[in-house]
């Protein structure tokens, strides 16, 4: 007791937080009872001095707020409640008293009697208009808590409570308080007897509708417009009694509001109408529909239109859903759905007019309502459209009719797709008519695409069409695809193929029996001649179709058989005189056939089809056989010795072998290394053409003819895809790699052979780096000085050696091997060597670039972010090198070349932080004569332009210089390559978007004048960019 008095006295004097803390701890430890504090406060609570009185109550409230719940029992709460309630009538103590009550109401020991006392005291004494918003917030919090914990006590008060609350809540404006008020109002509306107060409750809720609040900047409470909207909506749809009053408000706001108000109103209507009930919806349906119709047929914007359609759907659903069981036949549909439907059908009499689109949207919205309305709508709309289609006077309007029909069919499909139970598709009664219509529609060019969309709608509807009908569709579209007289284009082709692919996913039989034979038979046995461009285009089109369709396992099997047979026939013709003087068309044709297989395989690999692996036995040995056989007689069977054919065959082998399990790969690798060591090809090649039994393919032998050495890529393809677990069947890897490398630089005849050898080496290094330390050491310390740094050999040879170096380094780099650093750093050593410095510079970029050999799919060992790591390591060094003016110019240039190629090859995040230092260097790069480098620089700048604000402000500093450079690079007189002119123009178009107007506007007139010249560029693609860029500058205003 004494300590309580002491603490109170000290606090009254000081007002410090410590005393409160101490009191609270005394209370928690039961050394002071709450009642002691009240006693100790005695004189202050009754003091004449307003300030002292308020302070006294405030102290008590502060202590209560922090005291643990266990310290309050029923009687203390009761006493305190009465105490605080008596303080509410005193204007000086009302604020701390409310604070105290706020604490008390949260206590579980606050009884219903206390609750009643509190709420009555609030109603009696609190005048909301006299209080600031934070105090009003306390009042709302008290009521909210009472509502949550003592709802029954409030209910017992009945109308007194509602009347009291109404007077408290009226006129509230603060958003934080409103959120609470809305929550309270929702409970009242749902749980209390509001029959006498509907109008008043309507007034205190609908007066806020629609919410136009815009949160102020730095709002401490973070209340958004949407929070308020949701809160208010929860009130508006809380009671059906609001209905008759609400509808006129909605209609008024809908006609008068801004777009965002309209959307809010429409969304609110959609949540309210179901609550307000079907009777009201039916009575006011017409009025509502008239308002909604306006938003649909003359929409302010697409979003509002969509909301209006949703609301229409809800309206119709509300009217009809409860009587669903009573609606058996279409005649039972009366009222709004019938009227609106008829209205829309009337508009659809002119399907080519612009109003037809919104009309069909309304009908589609109806499809998503109740089953009976959907049935009714379809029964009106589909026969109408079908009849219109068949009307000879409307022939010219067939395309739009079909498009409308497609929309309707899609809506019918989606309306039943959500339901879990099996329902028969709504379209069943009309499918024969529609099939008839599309079979006519497919015949003419203009209506073909629309007809295909109708078909797509039909075939994507579950259990609508029978197998025979699907077969009929396959027949129809295949016929359309092949028809000679009408001109097809890419759009209709891809639509046809997507129809066929969709069908073959469920039933492949029809495509297999009807489409494939036609496609295969239209591929000629020999290539079209050089001049026959149209025929060639037709071949390609058929191949594209095959590629799209034959991803399906069964169809792919047929594709492989048919196409490989054809390739065999072209490459090794039966009769000798079939060999043409000009082999190129046939070579290109064979290439396109193989490419089709490769592309289809690639799609299958991406889709993870398991049937890919079986082609190691069916396809791969045949390819080896064909190419080895051809290489034996390179003058006679010249076609399969073409580099491009060998490359694409290598791709096929890579695609198949990468999918094999380890054991099967091991078998394949053993056969390949058998070829490498002994030259015996019979373990791997097997096919129609007979390879002489004693033949040895000695790839790495100097004396072997070029045509045979050219086959290396086919064998490399099998090795680079091997898992690292696959054992390589050779005694010492070091020696093998060493030989292969020497061969690539000394004995290889062309780039095909060289690159293939490097791929082989790189992949083996990557997967077996642990086993080849002596090879790696040897390269670093001897090879480099012998083949690269050696100034006595021809620079061409040294350039090749650098390429080999890149591949060795890459194998190490992607797996973050410790020696990678030593390898990559060697390149900088030759930057001062004029004859190869440029190549060494570009090599830095190639190291960071992504390639097709060392990939996850090929089971390479790759560490994440290896490229970033590399860039982070070398970039500072390169920047320093390029900036260092003490170096000779050609060495600086080499650094610049390294910089541009590195940046172009690496991900943006890797160099973004260096942008300030990079910018001046990139500008210098734009002065280098090399076209590729300029293009790289501009592409880097384009990528940087998409970055954040800091990078964009960096651009501002250099804006006028950039404009000058880009203009120069976009003129045909200054820059002959359109690969530079196009990105330069694009960058000019980006600048106005990222640079502030006041910085760039001095350039505007120059840019517009200079670009006028570019408009006359000889190349159409450049002119297109120039037009777009110039348009952007015309619109560039402050």
């Amino acid at each position, binding site marked *: 007791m004494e300590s309580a008095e002491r603490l109170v006295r000290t606090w009254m004097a000081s007002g410090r937080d410590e005393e409160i803390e101490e009191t609270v701890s005394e209370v928690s430890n039961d050394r002071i009872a709450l009642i002691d504090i009240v006693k100790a406060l005695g004189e202050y609570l009754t003091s004449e001095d307003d300030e002292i009185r308020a302070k006294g109550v405030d102290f008590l409230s502060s202590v209560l707020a922090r005291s643990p719940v266990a310290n309050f029992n029923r009687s203390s709460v009761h006493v305190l409640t009465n105490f605080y309630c008596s303080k509410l009538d005193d204007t000086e103590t009302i604020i701390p008293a409310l604070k105290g009550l706020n604490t008390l109401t949260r206590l579980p020991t606050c009884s219903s009697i206390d609750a009643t006392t509190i709420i009555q005291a609030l109603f009696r004494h609190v005048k909301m208009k006299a209080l600031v918003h934070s105090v009003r917030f306390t009042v709302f919090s008290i009521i909210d808590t009472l509502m949550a914990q003592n709802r029954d006590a409030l209910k017992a008060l009945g109308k007194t409570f509602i009347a009291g609350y109404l007077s408290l809540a009226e006129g509230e404006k603060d958003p934080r308080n409103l959120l609470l008020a809305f929550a309270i109002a929702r409970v009242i509306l749902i749980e209390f007897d509001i029959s006498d107060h509907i109008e008043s409750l309507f007034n205190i809720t609908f007066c806020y509708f629609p919410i136009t609040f815009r949160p102020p900047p730095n709002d401490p409470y973070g209340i958004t417009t949407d929070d308020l909207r949701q809160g208010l909506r929860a009130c508006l749809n809380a009671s059906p009694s609001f209905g008759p009053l609400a509808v006129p408000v909605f209609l008024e706001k809908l006609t008068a509001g801004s777009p965002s108000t309209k959307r809010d109103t429409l969304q609110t209507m959609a949540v309210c109408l179901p609550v307000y009930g079907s009777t009201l919806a039916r009575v006011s349906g017409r009025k509502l529909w008239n308002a909604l119709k306006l938003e649909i047929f003359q929409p302010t914007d697409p979003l509002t239109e969509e909301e209006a359609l949703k609301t229409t759907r809800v309206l119709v659903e509300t009217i009809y859903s409860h009587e669903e069981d009573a609606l058996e036949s279409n005649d039972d549909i009366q009222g709004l759905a019938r009227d609106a439907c008829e209205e829309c059908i009337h508009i659809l009499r002119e399907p*080519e007019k612009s109003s037809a689109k919104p009309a069909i949207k309304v009908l589609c919205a109806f499809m998503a309502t109740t089953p009976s309305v959907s049935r009714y709508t379809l029964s009106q709309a589909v026969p109408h459209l079908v009849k219109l289609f068949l009307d000879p006077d409307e022939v010219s309007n067939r395309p739009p009719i079909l498009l409308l029909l497609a929309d309707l069919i899609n809506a019918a499909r989606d309306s039943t797709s959500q339901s879990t139970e099996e329902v028969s598709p709504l379209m069943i009664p009309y499918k024969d008519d529609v099939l008839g219509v599309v079979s006519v529609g497919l015949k003419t060019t203009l209506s073909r695409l629309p007809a295909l969309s109708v078909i797509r709608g039909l075939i994507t509807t579950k259990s609508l069409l029978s197998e025979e009908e699907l077969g009929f569709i396959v027949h129809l579209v295949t016929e359309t695809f092949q028809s000679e007289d009408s001109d097809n284009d890419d759009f209709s082709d891809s639509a046809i193929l997507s129809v066929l692919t969709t069908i073959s996913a469920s039933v492949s039989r029809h495509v297999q029996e009807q489409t494939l034979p036609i496609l295969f038979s239209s591929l000629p046995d020999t290539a079209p001649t050089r001049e026959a461009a149209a025929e060639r285009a037709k071949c390609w089109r058929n191949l594209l179709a095959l590629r799209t369709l034959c991803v399906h396992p069964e169809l792919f099997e047929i594709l492989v058989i048919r196409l490989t047979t054809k390739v065999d026939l072209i490459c090794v013709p039966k009769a000798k005189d079939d060999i043409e003087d000009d082999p190129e068309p046939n070579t290109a044709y064979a290439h396109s056939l193989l490419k089709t297989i490769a592309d289809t395989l690639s799609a299958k690999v991406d889709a993870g089809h398991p049937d890919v692996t079986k082609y190691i036995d069916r396809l791969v040995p045949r390819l080896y056989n064909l190419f080895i056989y051809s290489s034996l007689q390179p003058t006679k069977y010249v076609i399969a010795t073409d580099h491009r054919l060998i490359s694409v065959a290598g791709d096929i082998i890579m695609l198949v072998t990468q999918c094999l399990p380890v054991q099967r790969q091991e078998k394949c690798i053993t056969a390949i290394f058998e070829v490498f060591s002994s030259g015996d090809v019979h373990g791997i090649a097997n096919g129609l053409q007979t390879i002489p039994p004693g033949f040895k393919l000695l790839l790495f032998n100097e004396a072997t003819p070029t045509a045979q050495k050219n086959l290396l890529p086919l064998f490399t393809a099998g090795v680079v895809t091997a898992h690292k677990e696959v054992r390589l069947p050779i005694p010492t890897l070091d020696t093998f790699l060493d030989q292969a490398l020497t061969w690539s630089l000394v004995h290889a005849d062309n780039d095909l052979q060289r690159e293939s050898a490097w791929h082989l080496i790189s992949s083996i290094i990557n997967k077996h780096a642990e086993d080849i330390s002596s090879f790696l050491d040897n390269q670093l310390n001897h090879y480099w000085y012998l083949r690269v740094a050696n100034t006595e050999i021809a620079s061409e040879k040294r350039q090749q050696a650098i390429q080999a170096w890149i591949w060795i380094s890459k194998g190490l780099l992607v797996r973050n091997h410790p020696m990678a650093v030593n390898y990559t750093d060697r390149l900088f050593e030759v930057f001062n060597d004029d004859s190869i410095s440029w190549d060494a510079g570009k090599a830095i970029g190639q190291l960071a670039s992504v390639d097709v050999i060392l990939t996850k799919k090929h089971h390479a060992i790759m560490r994440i972010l290896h490229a970033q790591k590399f860039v982070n390591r070398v970039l500072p060094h390169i920047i320093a090198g390029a900036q260092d003016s003490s170096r000779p110019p050609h060495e600086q240039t080499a650094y610049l070349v390294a910089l541009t190629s590195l940046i172009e090859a690496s991900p943006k995040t890797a160099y973004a932080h260096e942008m300030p230092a990079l910018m001046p260097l990139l500008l210098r790069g734009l002065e280098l004569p090399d076209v590729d480098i300029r293009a790289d620089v501009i592409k880097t700048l384009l990528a940087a332009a998409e970055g954040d604000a800091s990078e964009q402000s960096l651009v501002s500093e250099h804006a006028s210089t950039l404009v000058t450079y880009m203009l120069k690079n976009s003129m045909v007189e200054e820059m002959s390559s359109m690969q530079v002119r196009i990105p330069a123009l694009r960058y000019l178009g980006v600048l106005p978007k990222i640079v502030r107007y006041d910085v760039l506007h001095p350039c505007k007139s120059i840019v517009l004048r200079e670009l006028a010249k570019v408009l006359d560029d000889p190349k159409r*693609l450049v002119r297109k960019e120039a037009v777009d860029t110039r348009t952007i500058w015309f619109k560039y205003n402050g």
Partner: protein
Amino acid sequence: MPAEIFNPNPIVFSPAKPTGRLADLHAQSLWINDTTEPEEGADDVDPIDQDEIFDLIRSINDPEHPNTLEELRVVSAPQIEVNGNHVMVEFTPTVPHCGMSTLIGLSIRVRLLRSLPNRFKVDIRLKPGSHQSELAVNKQLNDKERVAAALENAVLVDTVEQCLVTAGRRGHPE
């Protein structure tokens, strides 16, 4: 926006198929997938032709509807003629009393002013017999001074810009 809507429910046509240039087909290589990079040959000149000019104006928005001039068949490729340095663009209003014709013509004029090299002389005309005040509109559209005066009017330029927002689509939906 004017209060009167001249044609509340116009016919919307499906866009014409993009016409492939025959020369492109013949320029194709023998090899499949070989044409991704356009040829660098500095000598080949693509002349500015009817299709290119149509591409420039086909996606201009109609002032009255959310449709392009192409969709409403106000402009079409055959209605454009290129003869040396002379371009002739003809357009068809959707209804003969269309009060928007001048605005449409002005939009076309502005688009071509900005997009064609200076060496071209552009004539813009209504299709003969398609409009009740054909002569007046033609005169207005081809009078340099009156076009220049119109472009001094900020409100008018704003409306024209509105029509030109979509012009860059060149027949593509978005």
